[in-house]
């Protein structure tokens, strides 16, 4: 594991300073990270795609397996337009696009989340499995169904948060600009 945190924040993303970030994390542009959200990259880098929302007390963890050590090639990639709601705990192996992790849900390691999935509030997914596209896990018994309709987009919510959060919280400054990086090269 690298000794110090290497956090890359792309422009136009809003990352609050009170969030707990550890390890090598990349926030693509348009991400919103609320205060006291936790992102832990122990086993390898985490790359979070565009326009993701990570709400309060949400935890995204890329934990070390017993006996393993930091591996820069072991990347946890999270797609675009994902929402991690309040208090969720996600340790999934892969996350695609447009997923919603509702409040207090737990997605264990070994779960592969594709695109358009919804993990309902309070649901615990422990066994390793692959959620096929547009799966919705809901209810006390964690029933699964396939959504016919696409999940609504979160752009309004992101726009609102991007406007409101800087008024009340200190932000981490965007420290990585892909355009500039390209111009340097």
């Amino acid at each position, binding site marked *: 594991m690298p000794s110090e945190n290497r956090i890359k924040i792309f422009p136009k993303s809003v990352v609050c300073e009170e969030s707990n970030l550890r390890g090598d994390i990349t926030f693509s542009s348009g991400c919103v990270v609320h205060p006291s959200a936790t992102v832990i990259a122990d086993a390898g880098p985490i790359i979070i795609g565009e326009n993701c929302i990570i709400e309060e007390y949400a935890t995204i963890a890329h934990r070390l397996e017993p006996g393993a050590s930091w591996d820069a090639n072991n990347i946890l990639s999270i797609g675009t337009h994902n929402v991690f709601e309040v208090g969720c705990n996600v340790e999934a192996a892969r996350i695609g696009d447009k997923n919603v992790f509702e409040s207090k849900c737990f997605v264990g390691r070994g779960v592969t989340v594709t695109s358009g999935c*919804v993990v*309902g509030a309070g649901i615990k997914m422990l066994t390793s499995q692959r959620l096929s596209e547009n799966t*919705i896990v*809901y*209810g006390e018994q964690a*029933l*699964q*169904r*396939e*959504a*016919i*309709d696409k*999940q609504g987009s979160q752009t309004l919510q992101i726009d609102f948060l991007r406007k409101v959060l800087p008024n009340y919280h200190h932000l981490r400054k965007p420290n990585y600009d892909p355009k500039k990086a390209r111009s340097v090269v």
Partner: protein
Amino acid sequence: MSFMQPSPVKYACSCGILNPINKLFFCRHCPKLRCGYCVTHEIESHFCSNCLENIPSTEARHKKNCCANCFDCPCCQHTLSARATTVPVVRKSEESKDAKKPEDESGDSPAAASTPPTPASSKPSAVPTTKKMYYLSCLSCRWTSRDAGIPDQGVATGTWPDNECLYQARFNSLVEYFQAVVLQEKQEKMEFMRRKTPKQHKFPSLTDRTGLTVSLIRRQMGWNDKTIPKAKAVITPAEATAEVEELPADIFTEPLNLRNVTTIAQRHSQPADQPTAVSSLYPQRRTLWIKRSLRCRQCEHNLIKPEYHPTSIKYRIQLFASCHVPEVVMVRCEQSLASGKSNAILLKFTNPTMYDMTIRLLTTAPTEDAEPAAEGSRIKEEPVSSSPHLRAAGITLSRQNSTREVKREVTDVSNAEIVPLESEFVLSQRDDSKEFDEYVQLPTEEPKFIVWRKGNKVLIRLQFTPAEELPANTDVVLGFAMQYTYVNTVTNAPEKKEPTTHALYSRVFINAGATEQKAN
């Protein structure tokens, strides 16, 4: 505390069933404990639990006990909520309307409407505006009415189409037919009763339109006898066939996708067609809830009467036992339980009423013979409560036919010997303001068994011995009869206004816990 757990203290209802105090009612006209089995349940009002709209009972029956506006999710049975989306529409001016009509019909999808054709956008009159459209969505499983293929509606409530299943017409005709049959039977019965009963008048009048004379006159005039219209036999009986549709060929070849198959709960929630495929799930109208009033079967007084309005959770009449009968709470046993070993239990008594109570614990229940004085006074008062001439005619006002109280012997399940208390004790009245007062322990002469006393609460120590032959790991049950004075503020007789004091008793059984395993 015994919150959300079965209470160890149980009271015997007057019908002989053991119940915790919070499930019992107290009829202060009888005055006796009543449980849910010995009261009449009546529907006070129908209402929708989602929109809290009060619906009269006739309307509720007409709507098949369903709310007109609210829907349940067919997928997870939660309530659906209407969600609004803005759909861009092109408002046309009058002159361009005719020219654009064919285009509009061809492109009726919202995508086509959102991208207006080029001639329309070039005209200044065609201003794209947005229109609010509504669809139903489940917040739990994210099912939407779009999944069922229901088009979005312009209004949030009232316009949602009903799911008409295949045999709806057949079902309706059957209902119609049987309603006609019932009506006809009723008419025939009435006619029969009318013929059987003797005429009220001494002299049959010629103008009597319904008696024999009418049919005589009709026959003289050459008309046929008036008959009750027969129920129209419009229904065709169902025919059984031996031919069954064959299974589709792909059922053996295609892998089964369980996500497209409905669950049992989903099928049951849609009883009309009971779909097997998820795609044919349809929003279901929400079933109504009722407010229930309870009535004592003996004296027909209301025990529970809720306020009529659905938004109110209060009661107009509430005779819960916990508001009238002293509550017994088991605190703890002094030692671990062992058969044949004397022990003591701490019990807390609480007086919920506004009058002092004198409580006496009896090891054996007073027999029914000991009660005739109280019983007699009750019966004497009873005719006053219901109108006397009805009673004289042998008609009771009962709503239900079975009002005879089933006297069940209270099974004595106690298996421990109780050392009776040396004296009775007084529970002082409930005083809510006393809760906030500074508590000063007054040096009063108390019986020895009283451990602690504060306000309307008393903690007593009751000695007992579990039975000798009790095996290990069995529940020790203490049973005693609690006699308490109850001040009744309502009286059936109008002449005496002052509250009357009754000495009532109720049998109480306490599950003190299991005996411990014997060491060797």
